[in-house]
């Protein structure tokens, strides 16, 4: 379709407006992390011409819990990802290959779970963890995150495995290989793209989680988002420090969204319309 110059101009302006709206807030965060207090609070706002400084980061490293929060975030999202793949991938394979009605029905259970408001589960779960003395431990939070992430992994891997032609697996089964062997040796190596997408999803979603961590962690096991909130509501409010801490917290999702964007976009769309 041919477009007139005016149309091209209008389109260009619309795209520019979109970019401005969606990216300026992010630019504000990233730039504020490198500002002194007086520039962060300046009116009119300083967008480009200010003194760049690493002062905020130096302060973070010296007198705040940031290294601890960072460690906790890494432990928790690492644990959640490993456990979710361990539980979700075999389950997804079973959902894709089994002919049983019962197993097919359970896939709806996982989907339903993903859609319900977590708060409904959180209050009883909090009481359960309290009884088990797991409040404030890594285990409680990892388990709860895994519940949701593994269910999604199962759902995602179901479609990954279902799209792979079953002929080779059938042949191996006829030759006397067990289901487990076929899964390990044939299906799993071919499912790499789906696996990496699932891993990325788990990493980012447990990394970004706030509500679960808010209810289940103690000062010792706080994750980065909680650390940001805590340091922010402290007496001395420093937007620069908040921005510097957020800078660290947004780096992993940033990296994924920009450099692994194909996988990321496919996964996130899949999360929404599981059969597209």
């Amino acid at each position, binding site marked *: 379709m041919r477009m007139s110059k005016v149309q091209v101009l209008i389109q260009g302006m619309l795209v520019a407006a979109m970019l401005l709206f969606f990216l300026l807030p*992010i630019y504000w965060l990233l730039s504020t992390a490198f500002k002194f207090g007086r520039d962060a609070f300046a*009116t009119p706002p300083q967008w480009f011409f200010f003194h760049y400084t690493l002062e905020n980061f130096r302060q973070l490293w010296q007198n705040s819990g940031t290294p601890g929060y960072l460690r906790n975030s890494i432990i928790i999202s690492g644990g959640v990802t490993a456990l979710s793949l361990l539980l979700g991938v075999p389950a997804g394979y079973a959902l894709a290959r089994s002919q049983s009605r019962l197993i097919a029905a359970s896939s709806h259970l996982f989907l339903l779970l993903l*859609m319900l408001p977590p*708060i*409904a*589960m959180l209050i009883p779960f*909090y009481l359960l963890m309290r009884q088990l003395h797991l409040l404030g431990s890594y285990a409680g939070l990892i388990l709860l995150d895994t519940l949701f992430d593994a269910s999604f992994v199962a759902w995602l891997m179901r479609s990954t495995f279902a799209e792979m032609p079953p002929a080779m697996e059938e042949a191996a089964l006829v030759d006397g290989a067990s289901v487990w062997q076929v899964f390990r040796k044939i299906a799993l190596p071919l499912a790499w793209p789906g696996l990496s997408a699932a891993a990325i999803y788990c990493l980012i979603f447990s990394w970004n989680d706030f509500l679960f961590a808010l209810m289940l962690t103690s000062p010792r096991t706080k994750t980065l988002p909680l650390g940001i909130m805590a340091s922010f509501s402290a007496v001395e409010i420093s937007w620069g420090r908040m921005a510097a801490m957020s800078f660290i917290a*947004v780096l992993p999702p940033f990296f994924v969204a920009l450099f692994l964007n194909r996988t990321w976009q496919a996964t996130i769309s899949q999360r*929404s*319309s599981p059969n597209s």
Partner: protein
Amino acid sequence: MKRTREKHYLLLLTPLLLLVLLLAIYPLLFALGISFFNYRLTDPTQTRHFVGLANYLRAFHSPLVHTAVINTLLFVAGTVSLELLLGLGMALLLNHENKLIQLIRSWLVLPMALPALVVGLIWKALYNVDFGPLTYYLKHLGLNLGRGPLGESHLALPAVMLIDVWQWTPLAMLIFLAGLKSLPQEPYDAARVDGANSWQQFWHLTLPLLKPTWLILLLLRTMQGFKVFDTLYATTGGGPGTATTVLNYHIYTQGMVFFRMGYAAALANILLVLVGMLAIFYIILLERQRQ
């Protein structure tokens, strides 16, 4: 042979199934149970009194719950319709394949990759009444913002809704793009032969053909809208007053701030039934499309 195979499949599924039963089904049943009790964690004796349906009745009569329900519906209706309209517009604008457009698309989806809490804090700063850049420019346009967008009760709800729109419109765009890509080509060829202009093609072909995408996004964003929490926690905490208290946030406050476990569980069950019905509707829709 076939029997043992199915048994093995079940074995692969069992660990996850057990986890779901233990950590989801059991707590949900437990929540159903305690919603009939007066159970406060702050009570030193930790006794639970059976109160029947009192928690539910209290919820139905509470003015705060009524406000929360209205706020929830306003929030969901407002954000979902804006996100869908904007998302469709953006998808139509960016529905070509070249390097530049691909690059723009991957930058535009950044908001939804960020932690919702950080997004909330960014906007809290942008909205700040003293130095927030957004407030600064709006004031220069001659708008009277009083105590700032988050501080005035008639502005706070639209202000937090804008945050949600900012973060989740890119998702609507992505899904609309996928929907546009899967549209059949033939109806358009036929329409062009018949002399339909691009507006007519959009109105009579694209919109109706995209109906499944609309529906799915509508349901999905509605359900996610009911879950909004981090953004509110970071910005208004449900205030000023009760201006941004949604049901989800109200449950959190009752349960985790005041530790009224029985009442919070009853509220949570009400929300669960509301969203559960939507979710089941969504799943039926998905199954229909699969066939």
